């Protein structure tokens, strides 16, 4: 079903949603655009390439308290985390929506992550189709597209006088106000991001585990956490218990396979002691282990890692190198 | 009920001079403001900027670092290093928005009980003027 809304009506609609729900939307903070809960609809940035950080932080926050145990004078009391309000993520691009859908695989498979599951159930996704592809985008090669409605509840596409509103799910339908008229026109042609050949990546990467390529590539890697943190599908985390005067808090924070010590175990032994081993892990998880488990490559082609990596480790280049390496060794 | 603001002070006192000086204030029955909580360290040079910053983060309004007079350090040089370190830290914290008056460094010898009591009194009064840490 295709409807139409003017920009004014859209703002009115968002204001009514804001009364009952949290709206997480792209907001301009100095030179950056980031997803954050808004207090006024005017804060929303409508024109942006893509945000520095993906909206995965709503479902898997950089830091959260899973539960706390209060001392309560010797009678310990368990206080679970509470999700206060329903939410809407507004303005995410189709690549990011696909990222969230990919994260569902590890987080919702039984028994599932309770907090993630509840947030997911109580959050609607109103996506915004891209009218421009960025130089770092390659979503069409990774299973998405600038106008892909697959993983959102509603998809908005900007046109001359307002926005086309595609209602995708029942959850989306329930969000709609009355009064949007039917849109009888055609959807605009989407932009075309760069296409990259990836057909042979998985067979190639399967054979290249011991190849010196990884140590060479890792020469310039800083082993910071930037790629994993900006990525819509990276989801490694660390859980620690902190106590303070008898009160305990179980805290979960983002972590990354890139940092040294990620695989350090009791006794000091490190399963990935070299830079190459750590860098290799990220690509193997995304391009081999995740698809082997969940049938999808864990990359949506948003290009954030390409833009943010301080030393220009470019996943498109890596995928092309891998395919070339394997082709050369086969011949 | 309006509670009057009582500054919370953490004092890092070196064992050999300042802590003994504070002890002397006590044995001489000098009274000084109870706002200070004393932590005994071997030397003023042991006081880590991390300790100072964590004090401020956990609700302390002022931090006092007290050691032997320069030249009299029990470990010969510890207080010289402390002097350099805290000169820089005081300025840096001020730059970050923690007023320089909140970090105080005093040289108090073991016989200067009076000086210790006066230091605490004046520091408490100054912090009362300045207000709680969270506001400045």
């Amino acid at each position, binding site marked *: 079903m295709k409807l139409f809304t003017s920009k004014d009506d859209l703002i009115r609609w968002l204001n009514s949603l804001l009364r009952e729900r949290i709206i997480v939307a792209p907001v301009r903070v100095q030179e950056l655009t980031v997803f954050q809960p808004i207090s006024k609809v005017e804060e929303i940035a409508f024109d942006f390439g893509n945000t520095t950080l993906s909206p995965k932080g709503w479902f898997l926050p950089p830091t959260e308290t899973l539960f706390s145990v209060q001392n309560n004078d010797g009678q310990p009391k368990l206080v679970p985390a509470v999700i206060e309000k329903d939410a809407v993520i507004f303005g995410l691009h189709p690549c990011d929506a696909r990222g969230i859908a990919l994260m569902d695989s590890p987080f919702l498979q039984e028994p599932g992550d309770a907090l993630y599951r509840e947030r997911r159930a109580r959050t609607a996704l109103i996506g915004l189709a891209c009218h421009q592809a960025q130089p770092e985008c390659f979503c069409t090669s990774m299973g998405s597209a600038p106008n892909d409605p697959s993983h959102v509840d509603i998809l908005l596409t900007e046109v001359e006088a307002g926005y086309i509103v595609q209602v995708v799910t029942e959850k989306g339908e329930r969000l709609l106000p009355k009064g949007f008229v039917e849109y009888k026109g055609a959807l605009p042609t989407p932009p075309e991001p760069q296409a990259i050949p990836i057909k042979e990546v998985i067979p190639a990467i399967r054979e290249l585990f011991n190849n010196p390529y990884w140590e060479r590539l890792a020469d*310039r890697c*800083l082993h910071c956490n930037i790629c994993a943190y900006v990525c819509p599908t990276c989801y490694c985390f660390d859980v620690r218990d902190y106590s303070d005067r008898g009160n305990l808090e179980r805290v979960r924070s983002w972590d990354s396979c890139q940092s040294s010590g990620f695989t350090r175990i009791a006794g000091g032994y490190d399963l990935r002691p070299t830079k190459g081993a750590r860098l290799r892990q990220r690509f193997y998880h995304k391009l081999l282990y995740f698809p082997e488990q969940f049938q999808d490559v864990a990359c949506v082609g948003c290009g954030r890692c390409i833009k943010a990596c301080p030393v220009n480790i470019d996943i498109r280049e890596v995928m092309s190198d891998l395919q070339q390496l394997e082709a050369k060794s086969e011949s | 009920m309006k509670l009057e603001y009582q500054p919370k002070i953490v004092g890092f006192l070196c064992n050999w001079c300042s802590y003994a000086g504070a002890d002397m204030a006590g044995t001489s029955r000098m009274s000084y403001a109870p706002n200070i909580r004393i932590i005994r360290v071997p030397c003023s040079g042991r006081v880590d900027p991390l300790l100072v910053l964590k004090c401020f983060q956990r609700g302390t309004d002022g931090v006092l670092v007290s050691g032997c007079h320069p030249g009299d350090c029990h470990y010969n040089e510890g207080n*010289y290093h402390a002097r350099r370190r*805290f000169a820089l830290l005081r300025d840096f914290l001020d730059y970050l928005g923690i007023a320089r008056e909140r970090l105080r460094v005093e040289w108090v010898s073991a016989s200067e009980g009076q000086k210790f009591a006066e230091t605490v009194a004046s520091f408490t009064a100054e912090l009362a003027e300045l207000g709680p840490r969270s506001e400045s």
Partner: protein
Amino acid sequence: MDSELIHQIGNQARDLLESGTVKGVIGYERASDGLTARPFFAYEPAAVERLIFDETCSYNLVKYLLDKKDEKMAVVVKPCDSRTINLLLNEEQIKRDMVFIIGVTCPGVVETSWNHKGQTLQARCQTCQLSKPLVYDFLAEHEPVERLEGELYLDIQEMETRPVTVRRAFWLEQFERCIRCYACRQVCPGCYCPECFAEQLDPLWMGIRIAPKENELWQTIRTFHLAGRCVGCNECERVCPVDIPLSLLNRKLEKEVKELFAFQAGLNPEELPPFATFKKEEKLGFEE
């Protein structure tokens, strides 16, 4: 820039690799955007043709030597980067005979990020006092460039004139954005502790929480651990994904250390760093 410079660097690199004097040459190559630069490790003479040098080569390559301590490496070094060499020599993290320094006279570099090249020289280049590296084994030279005489600390001084409460609000806002990716630490040549205070479990200074208090502790103490050691390469600010103005922190301490102790890091590998020494009679504001 200069194809003459690249020529000189390339020839030197090729000689070093062909003779087996070094295991590898750390330099720059063109990035995947076709516009900016990225670090490049050449291990074979044939790879030397990928080396470049132009105004996008703002990276400080010297830290990579710390990952390659077992092998002799060559590294391309701008004048500012040479201060890093002196720092690491001073702190005994590298051995002079394990590095071949390919020095480059540098007319300055521009701000870069992926697919973006700035039009004006970086602020630190505009006030740079070094026309050639302080230490090198080979110097790739071109005609000398006129040094600009800019004021070094105007932005720091402006920050100092703001009221304490305004500064507080400013820094809290900046630290709120930090996601503790630790890129600043990873890129910094002065940050090489096998166990960073941020990861210490006992005492537990910070923990894993990514929140304003912990971020403030992280930024403040990392900067303070670099007092008298930061050589002003500005890599930390370049790599920060959320644009925290780290040079406003590091250069503040650089200014104070200069004023209080008349010391600047990385100029002389033999000079004792300011916190490893003291002057008995110095007056630092804590007089009786």
